[in-house]
């Protein structure tokens, strides 16, 4: 096993991405599932174009939160206990493992956000405004969700309920990200400053990242 922190992060992230390339869980299951959800909403609430344009951005972010978490958790809880023991015996720093898993989940979440975003723009006729800020928001939300999903995935890993508990844990915790993302888009639409909302999301990301890194070792011991 490579000894440095960042080489270990790269190795773990590379392993997860390689697994995704072989299995295609995100590409062939989660992304189509998210797109179907966007397609179902108008069938339930009506096909009024003005209404859909109004609620479209909010629906998009809700879909990203609910389905995106599946991406992060799937990667975090895919290791069996013997695999974890083997990684530990090879000298993998638990914090590097956490950061590596979160990094690969971030990349996959970005792909998920972009593809589902294109579908949402097409279906709901959403205006794409303030592209640099929008891209920054997408990136921050992807990092935040990846960190939250990886952390909760580590918490529930090898428990009796498995990942069934994850949605209950992640959904309420991701509320600051959902608020920040939706309000940032609304601010862009109305021409207001969105710095405070971006700072809120960055603060959440930093807090979860610090907690994840500091608690990686105790969680590995379970």
């Amino acid at each position, binding site marked *: 096993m490579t000894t440095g922190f960042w080489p270990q992060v790269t190795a773990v992230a590379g392993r997860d991405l390689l697994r995704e390339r072989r299995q295609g869980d995100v590409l062939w299951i989660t992304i189509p599932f998210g797109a179907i959800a966007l397609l179902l909403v108008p069938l339930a609430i009506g096909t009024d174009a003005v209404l859909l344009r109004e609620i479209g951005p909010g629906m998009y972010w809700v879909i990203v939160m609910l389905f995106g978490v599946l991406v992060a958790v799937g990667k975090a809880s895919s290791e069996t206990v013997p695999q974890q023991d083997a990684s530990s015996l090879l000298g993998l720093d638990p914090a590097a493992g956490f950061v590596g898993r979160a990094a690969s989940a971030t990349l996959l979440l970005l792909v998920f956000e972009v593809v589902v975003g294109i579908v949402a723009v097409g279906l709901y006729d959403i205006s794409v405004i303030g592209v640099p800020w929008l891209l920054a928001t997408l990136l921050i939300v992807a990092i935040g969700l990846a960190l939250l999903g990886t952390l909760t995935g580590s918490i529930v890993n090898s428990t009796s*309920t498995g990942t069934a508990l994850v949605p209950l844990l992640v959904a*309420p915790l991701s509320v600051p990200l959902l608020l920040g993302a939706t309000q940032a888009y609304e601010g862009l639409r109305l021409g207001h400053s969105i710095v405070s909302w971006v700072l809120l999301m960055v603060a959440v990301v930093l807090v979860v990242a610090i907690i994840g890194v500091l608690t990686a070792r105790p969680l590995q011991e379970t």
Partner: protein
Amino acid sequence: MPQQTRVRRWPWVAIALSLATALTFALVSPPDDTQGDLVRIMYVHVPAAWLAYLAFFVTFIGSVAYLLTRHLRWDRIAAASAEIGVYFTGLAIALGMIWAKPTWGVWWTWDARLTLTAIMFFVYLGYLALRRTTDDPVARANRSAVLGIVGAVQIPLVHFSVVWWRTLHQPPSIIKPDGPAIQDPMMLVALIVGVLAFTVVYVSLMVERIELIHLEDQRNAFERIADQSVAGDSVTAPDLGGSS
């Protein structure tokens, strides 16, 4: 064998006395000029909400202390506090809804304080659900301590939501830089007595619940030992033959 425990009476006496005192003050305080007797809900709603904050903050402290010291005592404190916090958050939400209907005209409104309080309730409901996924006290303590720390991020969000966002819910009533919002001294005293009484209830319930969790852990440990073979699977009871 789990140790025998004696029944303590003082927590229940303290709970009864403090609640009786709080009830007396709530009933003798004057009605509000605009809300009338409806304002009396405040003497339970505000202390219940205060207790929820206190309980979840103690859960956070217990979680941090457990990860630093690895003493299960801290985990028991965090767990007991979360249970009481969930109960009183539920009570605060329910009472808030009952109060909202006649004053705001609706049971629920999409106000930042209300919504974030409901979300905080679900965060700690998840915390309690997580604790039920394993009987191993160390694994349970490690997992729930992390969630106890992450969940605490919600507490300042809920508290300051009425300051940061323009909301229907009124801003803090007692602790304000420019003095309490409640002008009538008797109403203020009744509210403070209510908060103190609920704090006594919290401490009393904590003492009882921590003891109960300790006994549950001892019982679980005893049952695990009882289920194990004395000398492992390699040694079995002698087969003495005869009909079964």
